[in-house]
């Protein structure tokens, strides 16, 4: 029931010429909308219609068919292509390392990258065939022969006449030093191995130790070498332990996987 003392709180926002008390008297007039509202009643208790259940059953069937078209919903091997992910490493499951591989393969692969990066392919061609700017590497005795000579050719360059595979070549300016381009013992070892084992060449692997020795050797002199000097002073194999072609090495460091970490 209405409380007349609350008139002041009931200030309606009406026009000035409305008598507030009068308006308050007709309480329901203050809120015509609220007064004409009907009350909410308790809900009806009709049962769930059978048609609704029947249609729902059909819909559930269709939904189930959609779900079924997913096949083996949790079958990883069905959905993912074979070989999409690498297998576990031979060191054991959970040891996520790049799997090691045979030394020859990995050295040659790394060396191929160095061959391209150091721009050897520009003159010697990616096929090692050489051309107007460089003698061929394929079938070259300099590539397959003494590793010391090969290393000095790379590290210092060559100038003057040089015989390769029976032909004589003499390029103006000769070959420049590629030491900067090769960049490091690992890359040198990989490059030399690549050159010695590609395009039909059959040579041995040049290990990182040997490459380090080569770098030491190169410190002893400066300037381009000549063919005579190479034959005279550098016709040896670089010192270092031999690396068998099928030793497992780590692809990044090119070291045998059971070698102690350096």
């Amino acid at each position, binding site marked *: 029931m209405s409380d007349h003392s609350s008139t002041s709180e009931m200030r309606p926002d009406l026009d000035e010429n409305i008598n507030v008390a009068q*308006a308050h008297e007709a309480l329901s007039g203050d*809120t015509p909308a609220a007064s004409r509202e009907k009350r909410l009643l308790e809900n009806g208790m009709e049962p769930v219609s059978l048609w609704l259940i029947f249609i729902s059953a059909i819909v559930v069937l269709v939904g189930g068919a959609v779900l079924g078209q997913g*096949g083996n919903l949790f079958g990883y091997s069905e959905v993912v292509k074979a070989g999409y992910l690498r297998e576990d490493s031979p060191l054991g499951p959970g040891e996520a390392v790049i799997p090691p591989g045979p030394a020859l393969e990995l050295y040659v692969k790394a060396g191929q990258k160095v061959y391209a990066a150091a721009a050897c392919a520009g003159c010697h061609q990616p096929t090692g065939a050489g051309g107007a700017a460089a003698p061929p590497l394929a079938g070259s005795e300099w590539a397959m022969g003494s590793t010391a000579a090969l290393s000095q050719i790379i590290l210092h360059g060559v100038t003057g006449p040089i015989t390769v595979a029976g032909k004589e070549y003499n390029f103006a300016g000769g070959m420049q030093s590629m030491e900067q381009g090769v960049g490091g013992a690992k890359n040198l070892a990989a490059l030399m191995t690549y050159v010695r084992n590609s395009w039909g060449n059959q040579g041995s692997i040049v290990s990182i130790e040997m490459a380090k020795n080569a770098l030491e050797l190169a410190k002893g002199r400066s300037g381009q070498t000549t063919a005579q000097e190479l034959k005279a002073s550098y016709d040896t194999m670089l010192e270092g332990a031999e690396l068998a072609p099928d030793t497992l090495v780590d692809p990044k460091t090119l070291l045998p996987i059971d070698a102690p970490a350096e």
Partner: protein
Amino acid sequence: MSETPSTTDIHDIELRSSIDRSLRHPVMFFFASGSIWLVLGILLGFIASAKKHAPEFLDCISWIDAGKVDAAHLSALVYGWGCQAAFGMIIWLMARLTRKECTASGIILVAGHLWNLIIMVGIVTILAGQGSGVTLMAFPSYIWVSLLVVYLMITLWSLVQFQVRDAGHVYVSQWYLLAGLLWFPWILGSAIFFVFASEGHPLMAAAVAAWFKSGVFLLFLLPTALASAYYLAPKVTGRPVYSYNVALFGFWALAFLGPWAGFQRLMGAPIPQFLPYAGAAAMVLILIPALAVGLNILKTIQDQKELAAQSPSLRFTTSGIVLFIIFGVLSFGLNTVPAIKMTQFSYTGYGLDILAIYGVFSLCAFGAIYFIVPRVTRREWLSSRFITWHFFLSLYAVASIVCCAIIGGIIQGQGMEDLSQPFGTMAERSSSYGWGITIAWAFLLVANFVFCLHLLLMWARLGRRSSHPTLLQNHHPESPHGPEGEIDNIGSVNA
């Protein structure tokens, strides 16, 4: 169980009016600012839709480039209009149903201003090019947590009101309100966490974003719309809800299916296989709660066709519910695997989204607004003609958008699947549907401009001061409520 309705005693009227009075500022603010965002969102939608088939439209203005304006459009529509209309509806409905006045109106009003500020900052950043790029979460990442906090500032009070309600009946609307109130922070919090805050796999972020996009509609906007429908249908007609059991069935069906939906957008993506299929199945099954709710509401108002036609709130609500059934049927048909294959990257998904946000939620929200605003401002709507225009333009426009989008999408899909034709053929064939959508957006813009104008006039207290409501189709010069009169002339009116 049905007694004779409309036995209102003074205490009820007092309570209702005091509740309305306590809530008038927040509710009117939400509705008014929401309607302004609606107009903005539709304008942006018009531009976005035009850019899809006529990219050179307004291309001199760089801040409405296609990607940005599309993201801004959806954000304005959902967060600017959808969420604010929902807030207004939620706080009013919960207060009315628990019969408790709102004691935190000031906080809610402040929070509403904050929400608007944040949304404005967000949309400006999107148009400036700094959006996050995630569908429907395009605001930059630092904004989201503040949105969640503001949401809590607005809606925690409704939860408290529910707890302190007088013992007694829990209405169906309250189930939906409670559910929506609790679902939204869950999906928003999860989405913020998994998309922006954590360093998870980006594919998971994409999946969670797709889930959130579906969840905003199915688990927040839709329950609010259904709560309003379950309130208005019995309220305006004076009859009880048709069946408690069907209501229970519909509610739990939605609760079970809603959280699974959403991933079907990513069918074929490298996310776990079961997610898109579960999402597709859930969307197929959405027809079940749609049918249940539709049955219930339409049965509640059966034999009352004239009332449904005359009362603007009931007319809009009924249309919203019918469109919900249509949404269920379309969802059922378009989420089977061959249909998804055809329509995945086409207009169709957009059409369904607009049907959901505008057709279902917005029409029910308009129904609620046309009911709530007179009670809260104590004025009646100015012009039934405005309401009629709003209604018919909205209905035709949303029907056009949905038809053009779905058919256009199927044609696009066919064109894309036909590998012997170049992409341009498909684009050409479906561009006319794009035009149809754009023109429909223009009509929608007119409709909602009218609505916004009408609502702002009501907010400015310029409504009709009268004792009886603004009804559509007023064929009788004599209203059933008695002679027309001013508000101080009430003595002659019986309730």
